[in-house]
């Protein structure tokens, strides 16, 4: 009887982007039944010795693994293994187990298993999922010790055949750490979240990873080959020859395309009919500036000032900030930088803010609303920024403005800070450019009023989408409604850009859609002259700009504005991008 192997598509949640093809390897972590055996009094020392040897071997394993990760510069992974090493020295696993073996006169495996299962049970009762997740570390150690006790060769991801797609219920950190990147082409798991250690290590190693895949109905014996699409979360089991060929070609293209783009850092960012775009970077930390320069970005379009201080217990002082901004500006090599004042609250908190939990933090006291309440801290930040104004090309931007009066009030405090410094005799630049974020629909609607009161606007699309559609993207029940191509969003962007252009002030788009090359032509067509993206996307966006024309862009924008559904718009811009840059299969799915 011939085995009919039909192509089967499973849908999961993508954790790590990328595409892989390989043979399956089922890496199951079933608990083996461990027999309980009584040990004679005279043999008990030997039994304890056997346990100690297993511990020593386990420590050696972990040390070796840790060294391997350090060599590969995967520091987070090495840190996790450092913790595993501490656990292997934990008195609960050393003295306590030894004592119990002597007391119970039972074999080491069974005593150890009983004890560690008690700890695991305790972990299961922890309500906080972040802490409960650490259970996996203990399971990992348990498996290692037991396998040494049983002297059975442990299945290790280090020894698997090359090109394997690893299927598992869940993965532990050392599984992923052991994984020979050359051999493992992808991970597919039934469980595991984006915060799991395994996800961190997989991301650092660049291994495609899809989770939440239902493997129950899969007949494992019939799986011969698998394609994992980390872009869509699709797992294709036993792909047809046609599918396989398609993915193979795609993989090759992907690599050579990215390599080519990286060599083009000095190419001007302009359409092929000569329309120039300012392409800058969104930056959180000072060290990211190196990549900005390497990829030829033209400045920092958005410096999220709060990130450096998120670990602080309270608002940083003026001096503390001055030092950081000064060092930042000195590394700009004369390029412009827009410093956005603190956007805290919502999903980011300074530790000291023990304000009562808000029922609706995203609609609550965050960003400019918080700054206007904490005026002394706001002024301290503005003073720190103003003091570096002569050392480079620095602009100030206010986050989450939702009305004209908030902008005017913010500017009043800025003026106060300016006048104070002046009086103190601090040398200052005459004109400081001031801009405001447009990320709330109410601000977009009054863009004409805001445009009269500031020097530039910056559209933050992530929040604009979330607020326009009233969708919390972290809520699984509704995040399917989150769509950046919704006609309402496109119209709001169009409105803001038109008003900014009418008042002759620049408008930047930052946020995810600026970094998604499928949107580039549309944004240009809507009249956007400036884009700000995370540095690593600069090569892709530069290429997207250089592959289109302003005439095509205007036509595309016109077409998009006629469409009525998010899905139609997405399809149109994706098709347009595919025609312009057919070789970028990272986005052309």
């Amino acid at each position, binding site marked *: 009887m011939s085995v009919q192997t039909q192509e089967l598509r499973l849908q999961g949640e993508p954790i790590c982007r990328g595409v892989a093809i390989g043979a399956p390897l089922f890496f199951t972590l079933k608990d083996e039944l461990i027999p309980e055996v009584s040990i004679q009094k005279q043999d008990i020392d030997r039994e304890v010795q056997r346990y100690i040897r297993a511990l020593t071997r386990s420590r050696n394993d972990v040390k070796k693994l840790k060294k391997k990760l350090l060599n590969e510069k995967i520091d987070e992974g090495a*840190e*996790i293994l*450092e*913790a595993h090493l*501490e*656990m292997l*020295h*934990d*008195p*609960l*696993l050393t003295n306590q187990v030894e004592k119990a073996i002597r007391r119970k006169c039972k074999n080491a495996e069974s005593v150890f298993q009983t004890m560690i299962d008690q*700890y695991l049970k*305790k*972990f299961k009762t*922890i*309500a*906080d999922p*972040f*802490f409960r997740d*650490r259970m996996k*570390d*203990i399971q990992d150690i348990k498996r290692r010790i037991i396998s040494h006790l049983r002297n059975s060769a442990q299945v290790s991801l280090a020894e698997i055949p090359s090109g394997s797609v690893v299927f598992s219920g869940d993965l532990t950190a050392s599984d992923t750490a052991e994984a020979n990147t050359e051999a493992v082409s992808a991970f597919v798991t039934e469980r595991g979240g984006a915060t799991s250690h395994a996800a961190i290590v997989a991301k650092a190693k660049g291994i495609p990873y899809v989770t939440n895949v239902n493997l129950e109905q899969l007949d494992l014996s019939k799986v011969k080959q698998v394609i994992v699409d980390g872009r869509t979360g699709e797992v294709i089991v036993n792909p047809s020859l046609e599918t396989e060929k398609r993915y193979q070609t795609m993989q090759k293209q992907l690599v050579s395309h990215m390599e080519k783009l990286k060599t083009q850092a000095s190419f001007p960012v302009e359409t092929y009919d000569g329309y120039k775009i300012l392409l800058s970077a969104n930056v959180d930390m000072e060290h990211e500036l190196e990549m900005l320069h390497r990829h030829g970005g033209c400045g920092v379009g958005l410096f999220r000032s709060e990130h450096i201080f*998120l*670990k602080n*217990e309270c608002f940083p002082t003026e001096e503390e900030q001055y030092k950081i901004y000064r060092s930042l500006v000195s590394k700009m090599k004369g390029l412009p930088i827009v410093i956005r004042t603190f956007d805290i609250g919502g999903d980011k*908190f300074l*530790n000291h803010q*023990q304000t009562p939990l808000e029922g609706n933090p995203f609609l609550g006291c965050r960003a400019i609303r918080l700054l206007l309440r904490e005026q002394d801290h706001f002024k301290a930040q503005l003073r720190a920024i103003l003091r570096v104004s002569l050392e480079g090309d620095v602009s100030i931007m206010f986050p989450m403005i939702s009305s004209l009066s908030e902008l005017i009030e913010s500017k009043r405090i800025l003026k106060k800070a300016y006048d104070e410094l002046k009086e103190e005799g601090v040398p200052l630049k005459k004109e400081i450019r001031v801009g405001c974020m447009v990320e709330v629909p109410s601000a977009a609607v009054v863009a004409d009023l805001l445009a009269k009161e500031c020097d530039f606007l910056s559209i933050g699309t992530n929040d604009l989408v979330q607020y326009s559609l009233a969708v919390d993207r972290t809520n699984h029940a509704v995040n399917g409604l989150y769509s950046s191509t919704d006609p309402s969003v496109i119209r709001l962007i169009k409105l803001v850009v038109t008003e900014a252009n009418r008042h002759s002030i620049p408008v930047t788009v930052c946020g995810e859609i600026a970094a998604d090359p499928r949107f580039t032509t549309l944004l240009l067509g809507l009249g956007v002259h400036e884009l700000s993206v995370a540095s690593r996307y600069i090569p892709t966006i530069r290429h997207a700009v250089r592959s289109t024309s302003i005439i095509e862009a205007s036509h595309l924008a016109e077409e998009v504005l006629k469409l009525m559904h998010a899905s139609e718009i997405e399809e149109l811009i994706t098709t347009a991008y595919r025609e312009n840059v057919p070789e970028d299969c990272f986005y052309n799915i």
Partner: protein
Amino acid sequence: MKLTQKVQVKNEMGIHTRPATVIVKLLQNAKCNVSFTYKRETINAKSILSILMLAATQHSRITITAEGEDADEVMQKLISAFERGFEE
């Protein structure tokens, strides 16, 4: 010498794997006995698993007890590690 001191967990993520590793490493050569008391549970602070099982989140208050000849020095080191939020 027996010392007792209350401390607050300052770092955002609470006493997760990394801070717990820091604590255990810090106590590696301590001669005194050190315990943490949190939510009416007292554990050996030299045991990383016990610390993790406390699941102490940010803002938790933990009572440190140190007993032995170097208790004073060890206590100072621990307090300072908590104060600095374990450099997170």
